[in-house]
C-alpha cells in the first residue's frame, strides 16, 4: 500500500471531502450569479469576459480539492469512484440524448449549455449511491 496516501497534518478524508463540497457549492453559486449578471444588462467585451469566465476560478479550486481528496482514497474507494464515473457517463449521456430529442420536438425549451453540470453532477451522485450500495 502507498504510505503517501495517508492524511497529512492531521487532515482527515472527511475534511478533504468537505473542502471539495465547499468548492463545488462555490462554483455552482458563482456560475448562477455569473449567468444572472450576464443577462441582466449589456456589458462591455472586457468586463463581459471577466464576468462570464469568473466561475472558472472556483472550478479550478474544486479540481485541486478533488485531487487532494482522491490522494487519500484506498484501493476499494478508487474502484468505487471509477465505477461511479463509468455509470455517470452513461446516465449523463442518456439525459443529453433525451433532452436533445425533446428539444427537436419542441417539447423541451432550449437549455443553457453551461448548466450541463447539473446533469453531470446529478448523474454522478446517483451513480455513486448505486456503487456505494454495491459494496455496503
Amino acid at each position: 500500500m502507498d504510505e503517501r496516501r495517508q492524511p497529512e497534518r492531521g487532515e482527515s478524508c472527511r475534511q478533504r471531502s468537505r473542502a471539495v463540497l465547499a468548492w463545488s457549492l462555490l462554483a455552482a453559486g458563482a456560475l448562477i450569479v455569473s449567468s444572472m449578471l450576464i443577462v441582466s444588462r449589456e456589458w462591455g467585451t472586457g468586463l463581459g469576459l471577466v464576468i462570464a469566465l469568473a466561475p472558472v476560478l472556483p472550478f479550478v479550486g474544486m479540481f485541486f480539492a478533488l485531487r487532494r481528496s482522491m490522494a487519500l482514497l484506498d484501493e476499494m474507494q478508487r474502484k468505487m469512484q471509477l465505477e461511479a464515473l463509468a455509470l455517470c457517463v452513461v446516465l449523463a449521456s442518456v439525459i443529453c440524448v433525451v433532452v436533445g430529442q425533446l428539444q427537436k420536438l419542441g417539447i423541451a425549451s432550449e437549455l443553457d449549455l453551461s448548466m450541463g453540470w447539473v446533469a453531470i453532477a446529478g448523474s454522478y451522485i446517483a451513480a455513486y449511491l448505486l456503487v456505494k450500495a454495491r459494496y455496503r
Partner: protein
Amino acid sequence: MSDWIWQEATRAVENRIRALRGERGWSQGELAKQLRVSRQTVNAIETGRYDPSLPLAFKVARLFEQRIEDIFEDRADEAREEDG
C-alpha cells in the same frame, strides 16, 4: 438494491479475516487503521463484496502472521461451476 445492475458472480475468493479479527478482539475500525484503509473497505472484504489487491492481501497476511493462502481461499473452480 443494485444487484440488478451488477449481476454479481458467485464469490471466487473466501477469507477468514472476520474470524481472525474476532480472535484478536479488534473492531473493523481498528483493523482498518492498521491496514491503512477505510472501515468500509474492511467490511466489504469481510463480506466478500470486494476482493483485495495482492499487496493488500499480503499486508493482511503479515498483520495476522499467517500465510496468505491460510487466510484467502481460492474457490474459482467451484464458482465457475455454480455460475454455469
